[in-house]
């Protein structure tokens, strides 16, 4: 991780155990950032009509309905989170993860994507040339090209607000503090405490996602407390930055190149003989 001087790395801790699915984060994000509206489409997937993160959806609330398991099977979830029927309705506000090892940033040829002094990853709209390399480089499928425009867009972590000492619009609008903004180190501590408290209250399925600096992206700047497996919410279970092996590849390439050069030298030497 880069050294940010005295400015600590900032992050999001999204505690889905208190998310009420109000979508205020989606609206606040669009209002502040002027993100275009989408075509109206009833998706038929619970109360989710956003579908996925993309160029025009920088926050996305997932709604997961888990009906009661019949036939005498043990009911899903912890008693804390379910009614008489055992029904659960999980809600979770997804966002760009602002990875420690950000694939999008690694592959950006123009320098449009850059890491800010807050440790966040931002696309500069005036530099992006629309090459789209970043799109497949994101292990979470977050960044996307806007068809009408050609350039790539995603959550900016409200870079303009951060600079003014304001919290991002989504966190500001969240009525239940499901989206918490702060120094990443402090958020990680807070999140660990929250998991312990939930476990104590009998919510045994509570776990953190994206908080581990040793994971495939070096830990997320935006991490989550989930009440089920990541796949249930649409998260990849083991995200890997696609450029993970790039340094080794370069080393091997360098070694190979050196080898070739050596052979050439040898051959030249040989020729001298």
């Amino acid at each position, binding site marked *: 991780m880069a050294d940010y001087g005295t400015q600590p790395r900032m992050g999001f801790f999204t505690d889905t155990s*208190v998310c*009420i*699915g*109000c*979508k*205020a984060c*989606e*609206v606040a994000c*669009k*209002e502040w950032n002027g993100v275009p*509206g*989408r*075509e*109206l*489409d*009833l*998706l*038929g997937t*619970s*109360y989710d*009509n*956003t579908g996925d993160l993309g160029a025009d959806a920088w926050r996305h609330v997932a709604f997961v*309905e888990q*009906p*009661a398991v019949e036939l005498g099977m043990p009911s899903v979830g912890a*008693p*804390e*989170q379910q*009614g*008489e*029927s055992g*029904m*659960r*309705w*999980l*809600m979770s506000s997804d966002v760009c993860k602002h990875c420690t090892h950000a694939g999008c940033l690694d592959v950006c040829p123009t320098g449009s994507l850059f890491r800010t002094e807050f440790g966040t990853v931002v696309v500069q709209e005036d530099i992006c040339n629309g090459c789209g390399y970043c799109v497949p480089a994101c292990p979470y499928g977050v960044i996307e090209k806007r068809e009408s425009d050609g350039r790539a867009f995603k959550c900016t972590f409200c870079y303009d607000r951060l600079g003014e000492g304001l919290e991002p619009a989504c966190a500001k609008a969240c*009525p*239940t*503090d499901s989206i918490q903004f702060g120094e990443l180190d402090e958020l990680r501590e807070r999140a660990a405490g929250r998991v312990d408290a939930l476990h104590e209250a009998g919510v045994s399925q509570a776990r953190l996602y994206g908080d581990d600096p040793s994971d495939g992206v070096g830990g997320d700047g935006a991490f989550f407390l989930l009440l089920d497996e990541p796949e249930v919410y649409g998260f990849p279970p083991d995200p890997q930055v696609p450029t993970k092996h790039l340094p080794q590849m370069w080393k091997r390439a360098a070694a190979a190149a050196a080898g070739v050069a050596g052979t050439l030298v040898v051959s030249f030497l040989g020729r001298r003989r």
Partner: protein
Amino acid sequence: MAEAHPVGFQWVMEAKARGAKIIHVDPRFTRTSALAHTHAALRAGSDIAFLGGLVNHVLANELDFREYVLAYTNAGAVLREDFRDTEDLDGLFSGYDPEHHQYDVSTWAYEDAEALPPAGSGEAELPGEQHSGEGHQSTARAESYGSGGASVGGKPRIDETLQHPRCVYQVLKRHFSRYTPEVVADVCGIPVGQFREIAEAVTANSGRERTTAWVYSVGWTHHTVGAQYIRTASILQTLLGNIGRPGGGILALRGHASIQGSTDIPTLFNLLPGYLPMPHAHQHFGLDEYVTTDAGSTGFWGNMRSYAVSLLKAYWGEHAQPHNDFRFDHLPRLTGDHGTYATVKAQLEGECRGYFLVGENPAVGSANGKMQRLGLANLDWLVVRDLQMIESATFWQDGPEIETGELAGSEIGTEVFFLPAAAHTEKAGSFTNTQRLLQWHHQAVEPPGDARSDLWFYYHLGRIIREKLADSTEPRDLPVQELTWSYPTEGPTADPSAESVLAEINGHGPSGPLAAYTQLTDDGSTSCGCWIYCGVRADGHNHAADRTPGSEQDWVAAKWAWAWPANRRILYNRASADPDGKPWSERKNLVYWDEENDRWTGADVPDFEATKRPDYVPPEGARAQDAIGGAEPFIMQTDGRAWLYVPAGLADGPLPTHYEPFESPVDNALYSQQANPARQTLSTASNPYHPARSAVFPYVFTTYRLTEHHTAGGMSRTLPYLAELQPEFFCEVSPELAAERGLENRGWATVISARTAIEARVLVTSRMKPLQVRGRVVHQVGLPYHWGTNGLSRGDAANDLLSVVMDPNVHIQEAKAATCDIVPGRRPRGRDLLALVEDYRRRADG
């Protein structure tokens, strides 16, 4: 609550984080259920059976907070010998008149109370006389009890042993004895085990050390027995000692911003500011009659004359003088029911020729949209003030009746004036929320274009009318000519100063702004626009604008905005202490008697006279607050007690009784009386009803809101960012009902009632659950009601399916439980739609 009040729900989440147990009772599994510990799915319209079951659980097991009940409620009051309960009359109370569907309530009174002349009045009056009958019911008098119950003729005889067979406690016990867990299961569809769990949780969490709060929204009020829903909760909370104490109470979440404010300073036909009743043409010939018939002679309503005179002074200033009854004659008079639905009927009959719609979209938001639109189409003129071009302004152009051919734009004579309104950010003013908190908002920007504030509209309308009438010598114009109508205007639009209006509401006396309603007098020396708001601008400071953060003050947070009355945060908080004035427990300490300093004190402003000792006994003949004893916390009641039993003031019974919704798929399990016998129906061609237990309309439907949209949609369906979140009208059905009717997720369904048929996209979800009721499966269809033909997110209006059938106390429509049929596919268009509905109607009636 998470659906309709997501911002307020943060406090529920905070309570949960601090260990509170959250129980959600709702026909549907909503976003609230998702965050609750328990969700109990009950059949829409069966809540009195559920709550009655809890009351029975408390009484049968003697789990009531006995010291509280004995000291502070009318549990020991002895009733008249000729009173008959629903237990005796199979679902009716004594006094029912089957011809007029009304009760004579005289037998509901306390025994001997009628022998007591109202103290101070000098004349004998039958208690309840002014609180019942045709006049009382049609003018929704019950609504004037927004700040204290009906006045009764005197204090009841109390049996301290609670053993008298006719005392309220024993009557209550008998009345609710049949509301067993098994009956609850049979009526509501809540399994016995789950019911017991809830009953035990609620009672275990009530008493000296703990309190339980109930929170409801219009899911409780939109029924033919709506007022009695709240009454049942009141009985439960009073028995458990959960009123007037921190963490207790019954919290009414209002329909939208400042609806509490719109009953405090009302936009209702039957009320004047501060819950003073609107005078009646045939009862209130002068101020004396008005005050005598409606003021309780004991309790704080005993000062009604001061409140009324100060209001008249605010209206007519120097023209209001003792010799002319303070211009009491200038007030309008009621002659009957002038409520919303009665007005619509008057429109249909050609009696009502002009109509103002201000921030209201009845073509979408009111029950039986067709009836609403037919009424609008029969006017001479219609003024619509709204943020957007709503359906109620364009019904003549593209309403559903244009499509069916029932109406033709060219034949509608209504002249529609659309006047764009300013949003709350574009004007200053106050919101009053559900906990009676007045919160000030400052203007942030000027309104765009021709948009203007409501203050601007009414002030300048009044100014122009007054200019036109300035030279009139007609007596009828005098009330307008003499109005105090001078408000300073400001800004580029000449907007009247909202602060000056607040100053008028707060009131003033000889020495400037008033500080408390106790300063109001009846001699004309004080003026006050709303007595319960008196003090909001004490010392000329706008306390509604106080914004000291919670972190910088104690937990009561008295310096955040201002709560009526007197900045009191919990009403009747004298009940937080025991009869001797000591806190019931340290944990629930709020207000207590400080013996050393001889006064009431505590974290909240005491809701009691500060120096009235706990052992004060009223002398013979005392009146107003002097008649309230030192251990009687309910100071707005004539007897100072919380009413488990209501001896006067309600149109449909002194005790809540489970009746089936007017349109119900099942019979009443408890009595042979099927529905509320005093319900109010509205007879007109566009308002046909379903027979009960109709096989043609076999399913229950319930209407509701989603967090993504706002009421009738004018403020949300028009905005791209909100429209995309719920892009069109949909209905919610269980997988079982989907299978039964061949409905597919994301496909189309047509929902049919005798009023009309509408189409909706289908969401098949396990959050909707078939219920076992009366030995059979009852399916419920969920219909969010936000949609109409205008805006970005469009669809048919769910409320078009509803009939208008009302609660007899407050004329609120039964919007939360009715019956329907549902079939796959889109609805027919044009005349074919009418034919389909006609066919259903014929089969239902046949």
